[in-house]
Each structure stands twice: as structure tokens, then as C-alpha cells.
């Protein structure tokens, strides 16, 4: 109890003298704000990519790849493999008793951005007729669906919004043929940055004989084991089942992993610098208060309340900085659309990121306050009182 009272008294002393230490306070505040702001802004790129990819991932959807493939890019499935997977137990059937499964194939196509005419490659997916059934989150925002056998395609939300020549009725030249844009769609996630067309048409025009992957809807998430067992029991079927949520998480890591690494690296170097600045500021603050601390120690204040009070002060200095940085990151970048490498997503400052930024700031405050706190506690009473 005594310790607590002393702690409160010391803290009051600290806070009341802060206004005379404007420079030191500002250094810590701004240093922390810059670190937290940069860290959160940079991490929001990776978080945005993850959010986009994971947005409509479902536990009852499964991606079928060739055994051993890393992703859809290096996977190839024969028509037979797709057809026999559709017959497996556990696959959901629609009202016409058709399996909710489609084979997909993708090719890269180029488009130019509206804003700066920059050229980017993105995916044209050739998908089967069951695509809308397997992706209930899919809906047309304008126009109609492509018709089988015709060179027609539909463009995802961010594709036609950010790129030229994907308005309904526009013609896109692919492999020496004109393709017509007949609709716009939105899924809210992964497919929004791509084009969709009829799989057999894409395969014949591009001379591709195999699918990249198949995607299917399960009767329920629990039906996965049943399907897995059936697939394993069929040795002629060289496929691998990847439940959508872990699969998408893995795919998003390819992209956001590098981004996150860079963000944390830059954040760590900046934080190291700012922590050194905080140490300096706290030393200055503590040094300026030597006599008061020595006086209190002389009248019986313990070492612990002194240490705790200085640490608390450091934390109180960095917290507003963290809030300021988070606020800056949120107001400057949240919701901005970026489109690296043919994808498009919005930067997302999530509450997790803000919490992370505050945690970094706290760590900076505690580490930065530790040495000054120890120095304050070990002020030699007699000489400090005599000084000046």
C-alpha cells in the first residue's frame, strides 16, 4: 500500500513537470507515431491482400489439384479426373442432381490501367457451367453470363473499374479472335480481379488439353473426410483435395509473406532507432528531476516506486504517439486500392494491426524507459541534493 501511494505521488510529480520538457516529450511522441504509422501502413498492404483472398473462402468448398502441385499454376487435371471426382460421394448435388463441381483453366491476358495506361497481366479463367452454383457469392452486377461455345467473357468488379476496355459490348482480342464483354460480376473476393469465360471455349481457342484445377462444393464441411477417403481409395485418380480455407491462406502467404517480411523489417529498424531516441529523452527527463527524486528518496521513498513511475511515464508518452500513428495510417491509406502484379485489393487497417502497433509502442516505451528508470532509482541522494 505504501509502495502504491509513493508510486502515485511520484507519477503526479512526473506528469506535472512534463510541460517543462516539451522537447523530450515531442521526440518520444513523434518518434513513436512515425514507427507505428509506417508499420501499420505497410502491414495494411499484406492484410488487404489476405482479406481479399480470404474474403469468401468457405469451409465446405474444396479445390482439386494434381497430386503434389504447389498451386493452380503447376497443376494439370485431365477431363477424366474432373469427371470422376464429380461422381465421388460427399460432393453436393444441385436440384437437377448434377454435381456442384467445375473444371477451371486459366491463361494470362493483358490490360491497361485507366489511370496511367500501365500494362498488367491478369487471369482469364475458363470455368464450367456450375461456377455460379459452386460460388453462391458470385453475382452479376450488369449484363448477362457468357454462353457456352461462344467467345464471350465477363469482367470482375476491380477489373472493369480499374482497367480500360472491359465495358459491356467492348471487344477484347485474344489469340487472333474478338471476344465480347457481355457482363460484369462481383464476388467480393479472389475472382474480382479476373475475367471469366466458358472453359471448353477457352481450351479450344488456346489449344489447352487439360484443366488446371477443379473446384467443388461439399454437402457439408463434415463431408470432406468421406470424399477424401473415396479419392484415396481410387488409385487411378492422381488428385489432391485442398479445403479452400487453408488452401487460400497458403496462397495468400506467397504474396503477403514477402510484404509482411519487408514491413516488419522496416518497422523493426525504425523502432530500434526510435527506442534509442526514447531512451535519450527519458534520460533527459530523469536527469532534470534528479533533485526532486533525491529529496523523495531522502524522506523514505523506495526504489521500486521510482522505477515503476518512470516506466509508467515512458509508456504514457508512447501511447498517444501510437494512437497518432495508427490514426494517420488509417486516415491516409485505409481503403486505398492497389493493384500489384495483376491483382487488386484495398489496403486494410484492421483492429488487429492497430493492436499490434500499440503493442510495439508499449515495448518501445518499456525498453526505452528501463535504463533511465534504473538510473533514477540509483540516484545518489547526498550528491544529487548538493548539486547546483
Amino acid at each position, binding site marked *: 500500500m505504501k509502495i502504491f501511494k509513493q508510486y502515485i505521488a511520484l507519477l503526479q510529480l512526473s506528469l506535472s513537470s512534463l510541460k517543462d520538457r516539451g522537447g523530450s516529450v515531442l521526440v518520444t511522441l513523434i518518434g513513436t507515431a512515425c514507427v507505428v504509422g509506417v508499420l501499420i501502413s505497410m502491414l495494411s498492404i499484406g492484410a488487404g491482400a489476405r482479406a481479399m483472398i480470404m474474403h469468401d473462402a468457405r469451409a465446405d468448398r474444396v479445390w482439386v489439384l494434381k497430386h503434389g502441385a504447389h498451386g493452380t499454376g503447376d497443376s494439370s487435371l485431365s477431363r477424366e479426373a474432373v469427371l470422376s471426382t464429380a461422381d465421388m460421394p460427399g460432393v453436393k448435388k444441385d436440384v437437377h442432381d448434377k454435381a456442384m463441381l467445375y473444371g477451371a483453366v486459366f491463361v494470362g491476358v493483358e490490360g491497361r490501367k485507366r489511370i496511367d495506361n500501365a500494362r498488367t497481366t491478369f487471369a482469364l479463367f475458363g470455368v464450367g457451367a456450375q461456377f455460379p452454383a459452386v460460388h453462391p457469392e458470385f453475382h452479376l452486377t450488369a449484363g448477362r453470363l457468357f454462353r457456352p461455345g461462344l467467345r464471350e467473357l465477363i469482367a470482375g468488379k476491380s477489373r472493369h473499374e480499374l482497367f480500360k476496355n472491359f465495358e459491356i459490348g467492348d471487344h477484347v482480342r485474344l489469340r487472333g479472335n474478338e471476344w465480347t464483354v457481355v457482363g460484369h460480376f462481383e464476388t467480393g473476393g479472389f475472382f474480382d480481379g479476373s475475367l471469366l469465360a466458358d472453359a471448353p471455349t477457352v481450351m479450344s481457342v488456346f489449344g489447352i488439353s487439360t484443366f488446371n484445377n477443379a473446384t467443388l462444393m461439399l454437402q457439408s464441411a463434415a463431408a470432406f473426410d468421406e470424399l477424401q477417403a473415396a479419392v484415396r481409395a481410387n488409385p487411378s485418380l492422381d488428385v489432391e483435395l485442398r479445403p479452400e480455407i487453408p488452401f487460400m491462406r497458403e496462397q495468400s502467404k506467397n504474396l503477403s509473406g514477402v510484404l509482411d517480411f519487408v514491413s516488419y523489417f522496416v518497422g523493426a529498424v525504425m523502432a530500434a532507432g526510435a527506442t*534509442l531516441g526514447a531512451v535519450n529523452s527519458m534520460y*533527459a527527463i530523469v536527469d532534470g528531476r534528479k533533485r526532486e527524486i533525491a529529496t523523495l528518496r531522502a524522506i523514505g521513498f523506495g526504489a521500486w516506486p521510482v522505477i515503476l513511475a518512470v516506466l509508467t511515464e515512458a509508456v504514457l508518452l508512447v501511447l498517444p504517439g501510437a494512437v497518432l500513428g495508427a490514426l494517420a495510417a488509417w486516415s491516409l491509406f485505409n481503403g486505398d486500392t492497389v493493384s500489384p502484379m495483376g491483382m487488386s485489393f484495398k489496403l486494410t487497417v484492421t483492429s488487429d494491426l492497430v493492436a499490434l502497433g500499440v503493442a510495439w509502442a508499449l515495448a518501445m516505451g518499456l525498453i526505452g524507459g528501463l535504463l533511465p528508470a534504473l538510473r533514477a532509482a540509483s540516484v545518489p541522494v547526498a550528491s544529487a541534493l548538493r548539486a547546483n
Partner: protein
Amino acid sequence: MKYLPLIWSGIWRKPGRAVLIFLQILFAFLLFGLLQGFKSGIDQVIAQTRADILIVHSRQSFGQPIPLGHFARIQAVPGVKAVFVQNFLMGSYQFPTQRILADAVDPDLKWLRYPGLEVSRSDLDALIHTRTGALVSATLAQKYSWKVGDRIPLHSNLLQENGSPDWSFDIVGTFRESEHLGLDEAIIISNDYLNEARADKKNTVQHFIVLTDDPKQLAAVAQAVDDLFANSQDETRTEPLREMAQSQFQSLGDINFVVRSVVGAVFFALLFSVGAMMMQSLRERSPELAVLKALGFSDGKIFWIILLEALISCVFAALLGLGCAAAIFPLAKAYLGGLSMPYAVAAIGAGLAVVLALIGAAMPAWRGMRLPVAEALGGR
């Protein structure tokens, strides 16, 4: 010069604080060196890219294969000096994580002339005469201790005609890249062999590399090539290599903006730190400065002594930070793609350090200059 000891003792008046601010500046410039160095390194690679090379690829997109048959027709276009075939086989060696790019070419003595590639006549001869031969990059040869005569297995998702995903190549020589071609961890194989052995995509290539006679005629040659295949199934797009390198980096996102923002934030925070530190130090040293003044140091000299103190510590810390950054570049090859930090970045960094010191110390130096001697001596 004779004031150097004075300035030096001023810097080390409080060693703890001096070290802390020194390290803080060092970290800031380390980050600046890495980020700005990465950005400038990319610009340098683009600027060094040969201006007389065209890449012919599918109009569709870069990855789409185009017929090998285009070769002869492209070669006949006026202004074309040489055409090179380029195909890729992506494979892994021993472990899935050890990815190796096999660059399939038409083995021919003209590769001796290929810009940026250093290969000996005898090694190239060996590749020409060995169907399953491979030239390995000097880097890979060292990494896996490969030597001529070794047979290396590559596991690939590109299947052979017999359905096997396992390829093997006989090492017949080595090559080195003298310019950044992205082949540092690659092997060069014969496209004839790849084309015959693979199950799919027969008689196609990823792209052609066209060496032209005159960089000024680049656009005309590109147009002439694309006109050859206009309205066919396999339309081409012919672009200068340099432009492609540029757009490739642009597609990564606005690196410039990120670098500028981060560096801006770092220096903004640092400026406050340096300024506050100098002010603090000035307050504590008022009596000492007053003594100097009383001894006859002019106001101007006091101003310069304080300014130089800041300059020396800032520039020294900055150079050390930039040095660390330059040393990290070769170490972090995997992340930075073999870029190096251009000297210009060090120069810009040093300039920034000077600006930082001048702005940070201007106010304290001014105050020091105007210090009233009597009051300061009295400790008031």
C-alpha cells in the same frame, strides 16, 4: 582545425547520450541506404539494360507460348542482326525448395555474341554436340559443387513424352553473366532436346530475343515483326527489353512512393531527436559556453563550434549507417536479387546528413551565439 579538440570534447561531453544519438542516426541511415539503394539499384539495372534488344512474345500475355516457326520469318526482317530462342523449364533439384530455372536455347555459336553472357567457345561446342547437355551458372556450380561430367536430375511439372516428370542433364560446361540477365541461378540447355522430349507445347517458345543493328530503328523493327503475324492465331507483341524491365518493376507497385514515405517519416522523427538533443546539451553547457565567450571567443565562433559538433557526429554516424547498408546488399542477395547500392545513394545520404545537422543544430547554435555571458556564468 585547432578547435577540433574542443569540438571533440563537446561531442563526448555525455558519452551515453552521444552513443545513443549516434546509433539512432546510424539506424536511420541504414534504413535509408537499404530502401533508397534498392530503388536506385533497380533504376540502375533498367538503365544498364541493352537498348538494342527486342523481345518478341505472344500478344496475349508474356507467358503464352508462340510458335517456333516464327523464327525464320523474324530473322528475315531488315534490321535484325540475330534472333535467339528462349524457352523455360522450371524444375527443382533434390528438394522442392531448391528451384532451378533451365533456360532452353538453340545451341549455336552466335551465343558467344550474346550480350551479358560469358561462355567459352569450347563449352558452347560441347553443348552443341551433347543433346542432354547443360551449361551451369558459376554460382550454381559452386553452390552444389557440380563439375563437368556430372549428371543432374531435375524434377519438373513439365512432363516428358513418356509421362515422367524427372529430367536429367549432363553438365558440359559453365557460364557467367556479366550483366543482370536473371540467369545467375540457372542452367542453359538445348531447346531441341526440350522440344522433342516434352509432352506438351511442342514447337513453341516462350519468346524470341532479337538483337538489332541500330537502337534507333528499334520501333520500326518491332512494328515490322508484329505486322508479320497480325491477324493470325499467334499474334506477337515486340517490345524493347528496357521497356519490359521497366514495366515489370512498375507492376510491383509504387516502390518510389513507399520508399519516399518511409524515408520521410524516419527523417522527420530523427530531426526532432537531433534538435531536442542539441537543445538539451546547450542548456546544460550554458556556463561552459559562457566561459569560452568570456575568454574571448567571438559569437560567430561559438555558432560554428556548435554547428560543427552536430555536423561531425551526424555525418560520421550517417556514413557508418550507409556503410552497413552497402555491406548488407551482397549478404541479402536472395531478397535483393543481386542488386548493389549505387554510389549516388551514399552521396545523397551524406548530403541528407549535412542537412539534418544544419537544421537540427541551427536553433541551438543561434541560441549559443546569443548567450548572455553574465547570466549564463551565474548559472541562471
